[in-house]
């Protein structure tokens, strides 16, 4: 299946894209996506551990990524460390 992943801040600059389109297996989890990102975008690999995913604007804890199946109809974003204020 085809999914879209929104990017912000450092990952957006690093990959020169505000959104990625990625092909991933039906039923894939966020943990699978994390692995796919490392393979597809090796320059992102060292930064990924500090990032989380947001699904439908809800932050998903990294420990729950393996239990969270990706729904391609829901908005998905890669959230780097926040630093507002």
């Amino acid at each position: 299946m085809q999914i879209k992943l929104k990017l912000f801040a450092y990952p957006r600059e690093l990959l020169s894209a505000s959104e990625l389109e990625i092909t991933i297996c039906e039923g894939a989890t966020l943990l699978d996506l994390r692995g796919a990102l490392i393979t597809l975008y090796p320059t992102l690999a060292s930064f990924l551990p500090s990032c989380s995913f947001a699904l439908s604007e809800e932050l998903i804890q990294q420990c729950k990524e393996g239990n969270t199946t990706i729904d391609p109809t829901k908005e998905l974003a890669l959230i780097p460390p926040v630093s507002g204020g």
Partner: protein
Amino acid sequence: MDEHDEKVHVLLTEDTVRLEPGVTFATLPSTGAVASFLGVTRSPGHNGKPVDHLYFESYKSMALKVLREVGREAVEAHGLSRVHISHGLGNVGLGAASLCVVVSSPHRREAFRGLEQVVDALKSRAPIFKKEVYSDGTSQWVEPHQCK
């Protein structure tokens, strides 16, 4: 709109962040205490280099949602009358405000505690991202462990 929506006002803006609209929103006949916080661009930056300006971007729809949650939580926890949160996006120059939080309550203690809770919570939860742009033309995205 629930009962707290009329008590909480949040804003992400490319314009100048100003204190006065927040104070106006928060001040009611029943509020004996109006407490405010401005987050202002400073130099040197986290790594000691002279800062020219800050650049902010956000996951806007989620950030607005989180800011509303943060405001509602503070209203619940401290019985605040009003909470205003505005955050700047784009470039914010030295000495200019990137964040304005104004809270109000009948008495001062609740206002002080609520103000601190709102500032701490939004800094750790809202998907807003800050880059320091230095006088030498280099730049660096700031991570939370660098923020105090």
